């Protein structure tokens, strides 16, 4: 147990055992897959038409926004060139892979989920997982055909974040009880307001920067306490999404192994 918890010495043994266990997970997942399939197959023509219509409209809107993004990107590069500051290497988009979240229950006292991709799809330990609305978590154990991921609201998870409005950096620690996050070690006079958007800061070399994490919903400042209590509601639908994106991050054009930064996520809270 010490070998596993402290040194990850028997990870290969664990992933070997997970070959035995994977069929069980997939069989348990079958009913919800079947329901998905059935609700996908037995839909009336008009519902599909409606859905198609809304999706087309949405696609149009997103494309229009993307046009603006392209011009903004060019403008930003121009301005940076005028200021003679370093270019951001975000032209190359990160490699992503859609993965399905298996409906399998793990330990009820931890926030974890199982995905249907493993080492055979190049998944590695520490890989970030992003939902449609924001960051969901990161991979903690990989097997050949499935992996386990830790959700950002687990008590042992910390995530380096940044306030989108003014760039204040913070660390968001999971509060599993309400599926929320808390910004720790922020002074009482810190410039954070309710409804501020938090994005990943890219420090710690695990999560790529700029992905939305959550919104501040509550700030309690008590002069008798050294730090403010700042509660964050994650933007990702952590308990509803059936699909997520695995991301292979590039840190400023570098590979992850070249990224040198404080390993904040590695230190679990005791």
């Amino acid at each position, binding site marked *: *147990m010490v070998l*596993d918890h402290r040194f990850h010495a028997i990870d290969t043994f664990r992933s070997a055992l997970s070959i035995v*266990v994977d069929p069980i997970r997939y069989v348990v997942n079958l009913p919800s897959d079947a329901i998905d399939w059935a609700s996908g197959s037995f839909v009336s023509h008009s519902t599909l038409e409606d859905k198609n219509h809304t999706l087309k409209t949405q696609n149009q809107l997103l494309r229009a926004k993307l046009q603006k993004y392209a011009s903004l990107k060019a403008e930003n590069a121009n301005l940076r060139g005028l200021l003679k500051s370093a270019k951001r290497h975000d032209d190359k988009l990160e490699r992503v892979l859609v993965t399905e979240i298996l409906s399998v229950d793990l330990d009820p*006292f*931890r926030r974890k989920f199982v995905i249907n991709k493993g080492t055979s799809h190049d998944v590695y330990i520490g890989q970030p997982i992003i939902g449609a609305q924001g960051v969901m978590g990161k991979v903690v154990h990989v097997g050949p055909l499935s992996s386990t991921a830790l959700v950002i609201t687990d*008590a042992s998870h910390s995530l380096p974040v940044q306030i989108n409005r003014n760039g204040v950096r913070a660390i968001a620690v999971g509060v599993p009880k309400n599926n929320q996050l808390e910004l720790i070690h922020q002074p009482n006079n810190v410039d954070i307001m309710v409804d501020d958007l938090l994005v990943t800061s890219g420090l710690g070399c695990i999560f790529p920067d700029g992905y939305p994490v959550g919104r501040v919903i509550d700030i309690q400042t008590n002069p008798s306490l050294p730090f403010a209590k700042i509660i964050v509601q994650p933007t990702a639908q952590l308990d509803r999404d059936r699909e997520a994106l695995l991301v292979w991050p590039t840190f400023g054009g570098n590979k992850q192994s070249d990224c040198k930064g404080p390993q904040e996520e590695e230190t679990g809270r005791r």
Partner: protein
Amino acid sequence: MSIAQKHGTSVIVISFIMALMLTVMPLPEWAEELRPLWVVIVLIYWSMALPQRVSVGVGWSMGLLLDVVNDAVLGQHALALALIAFLTNNLHQRLRIFPQSQQVIVIFVFCVIYSLIILWIKGITGTAPSVWLIIMPSFTTALVWPLAFIILRHARRFYRVN
């Protein structure tokens, strides 16, 4: 002492696989903390009925599988299940002649021992929930035991596992 003595291994294996599946079967959130300890039930039954076949070794290996299924620290369920198998093996002759109600009480105590070992290990690794939350499944396990006992005994007699 003959070949006929090893009969129905597949029934034991299938019952353990069913228990593992029930352990990870999705439940509504309120029921998650009440999920009976299925693997413990099956292990106690077999090590009570067939102590010469199902014992500490089986308990340990099932525990390792349970650790991987549950994504726990490798070895925590193994240790707890091995201890439960050992206790049941020691007490199997008494357990067999107990009336149902008394059996339920013993099963409850075993489950509490099991849960406390898990809690202890979780405490060492820094993710301990409250004691009451972790003991809740023991109550449901004790409630489910009579039914599970009847089903497993029926399966054992029907397939003549011995």
